[in-house]
């Protein structure tokens, strides 16, 4: 097989393995698979279908357009699709009619639902801000939000499916404070006539590590793709496998005037590789690691060949993968370039062809 520029290999077997690990880890809580940003660059529809085939009932899609595209791709009820980043100007009728679960933070959003012409009740998850301070109702605004939702529930406009939050993963103590604030908000909702909503709070790191963070449902993104947090335990040590491999053929091999030998691949900063990479991380050819060197160009990266005479134009270079061909993992890339693996995968150019196995 030859590839011209670069290729993303997506190993659905590894993904299914990770889903089994995560499902077992958090049982009896359920798993939501977060597929925002084209499934963290892994391919929205392929990943969602694999998750549904593995028995996953909850898909986290971020926004309404992504959710609707999944319904169009055949992800039908009873699979639940959750959207929580709503455009203030958005008409919610198509989402309600397609039975998309909506994450709701404000009374204005409830009013938008009430004003829509949908024939079926909207499924809403009421969000409380437990410290992250992005969206979510503040504790002061929470009773009003719940009360308004309850009134609309009585009118048949909506159904309160869940109460939820998102936490900062700042440290264990801060997360414990958020969990306590969440439990308080659940109690307030209970007293306002929401007896037993689903409760969800945690994403990957807290959901994996802390049983008191799991509640009824854990929203797993990064760990589904085998992407552990930086500077922590490796995917392997958690029993997870990295799903994505990025590779490209050698495009040039040359000797510089000073005698050093270098080779290139046709992926550069416009394709999503960071200019912080040269000098900090390498790539693998024939199982051997070679350091990336400056300059990282707009459409090309160079690596040092040292005394390796085996590398020829067309040879396969593995930029990152699960490490089995001598290449660094995404966690190593994130640590080396001062970021996290999620930033690396979602910044890759969508023009790099993807092959699913």
């Amino acid at each position, binding site marked *: 097989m030859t590839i011209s*520029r670069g290729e993303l290999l997506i190993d659905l077997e590894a993904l299914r393995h990770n889903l089994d690990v995560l499902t077992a880890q958090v049982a009896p809580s359920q798993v939501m698979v977060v597929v*925002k*940003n084209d499934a963290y660059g892994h391919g929205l529809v392929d990943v969602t279908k694999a998750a549904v085939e593995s028995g996953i009932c909850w898909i986290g899609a*971020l926004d309404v357009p992504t959710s609707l595209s999944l319904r169009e791709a055949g992800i039908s009820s009873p699979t639940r699709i959750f959207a929580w*980043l*709503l*455009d*203030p*100007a958005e008409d919610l009728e198509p989402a309600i009619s397609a039975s998309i679960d909506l994450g709701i*933070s*404000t009374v*204005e959003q409830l009013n938008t639902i009430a004003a829509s012409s949908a024939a079926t009740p909207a499924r809403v998850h009421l969000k409380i*801000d437990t*410290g*992250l*301070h*992005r*969206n979510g109702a*503040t504790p002061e605004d929470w009773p009003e939000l719940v009360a308004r939702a309850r009134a609309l529930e009585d009118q048949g406009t909506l159904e309160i499916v869940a109460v939820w939050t998102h936490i*900062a*993963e*700042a440290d264990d103590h*801060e997360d414990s404070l958020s969990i306590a604030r969440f439990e308080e908000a659940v109690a307030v909702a209970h007293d306002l006539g929401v007896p037993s909503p689903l409760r969800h709070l945690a994403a990957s790191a807290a959901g994996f590590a802390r049983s008191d963070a799991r509640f009824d449902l854990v929203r797993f993104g990064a760990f589904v793709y085998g992407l552990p947090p930086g500077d922590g335990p490796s995917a392997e040590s958690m029993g997870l496998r990295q799903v994505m491999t990025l590779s490209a053929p050698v495009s040039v091999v040359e000797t510089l005037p000073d005698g050093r030998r270098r080779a290139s691949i*046709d992926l*550069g*900063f*416009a394709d*999503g590789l960071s*200019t*912080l990479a040269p000098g900090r991380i390498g790539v693998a050819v024939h199982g051997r690691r070679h350091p990336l060197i400056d300059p990282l160009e*707009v*459409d*090309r990266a160079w690596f040092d060949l040292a005394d390796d005479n085996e590398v020829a134009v067309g040879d396969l270079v593995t930029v990152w993968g699960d490490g089995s061909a001598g290449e660094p993992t995404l966690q190593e890339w994130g640590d080396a370039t*001062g*970021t*996290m693996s*999620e*930033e690396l995968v*979602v*910044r890759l150019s*969508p*023009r790099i062809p993807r092959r699913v196995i």
Partner: protein
Amino acid sequence: MIDLEIVRSNARILIADASPNRIVVDLRGDAYGHGAAAVAASLGAEAVDAFLVSHDEAAHAIRASGVSIPAIQSFQADLADASLIGPEIFGLDTASVPDPRGLGLLPAMTLSARVLSTKKVGADEGVSYGYVYRTQTATRLAMVCLGYSDGIDRHACNGARAWFAGSTHPVAGRVAMDVFMLDVGDDPVSPGDEVVLFGDEAKGYPSPVAWAASVGKSAAEVTASLGDRIVRSYV
């Protein structure tokens, strides 16, 4: 938003400087995020001898937009006797042009986004992942619809500022995958309001060069790695 009139006027300044050499305009990386086909079309009547592009798709797109100036790739390019005009044509800094504005080269791109929601918070509150930012006083936070998946650096909170309602404000906390928070202070802010990350300094916006410097990158890297969710519109 990309102002093609500015690209043209920057091009004229740079071409006048470089003639009588052969002129090659560097449109690699989809014209550093500005859109190779649209930029090439806007330069169709200028004294440009060739465009340098990253791959076949860009060359095809330029031809398809009716431009007769050839689009070539690095391996086909003989640049020995040519002047290569780089990202400075978009008003961005390069090794050879560290201060584009000093040469009269204005930024062609204005990067803006809308506020999705707002929130009042007290003093000394942590914001976003890891609580790396803490509010100094009671303030208003605006959640802006751009994140690191759009190419906005996760670490933009270490000093980057964005424009809102006449002045610039600090990015508050780590940029998330899809949104970032802006600490707008006492300014009244509502969902739907516009925030500008960078653009023409003369309008009070941070320049692309200043924005890039605050995330430790070159402006060309910043614009070239902006994601496709950001709609490119042209004037």
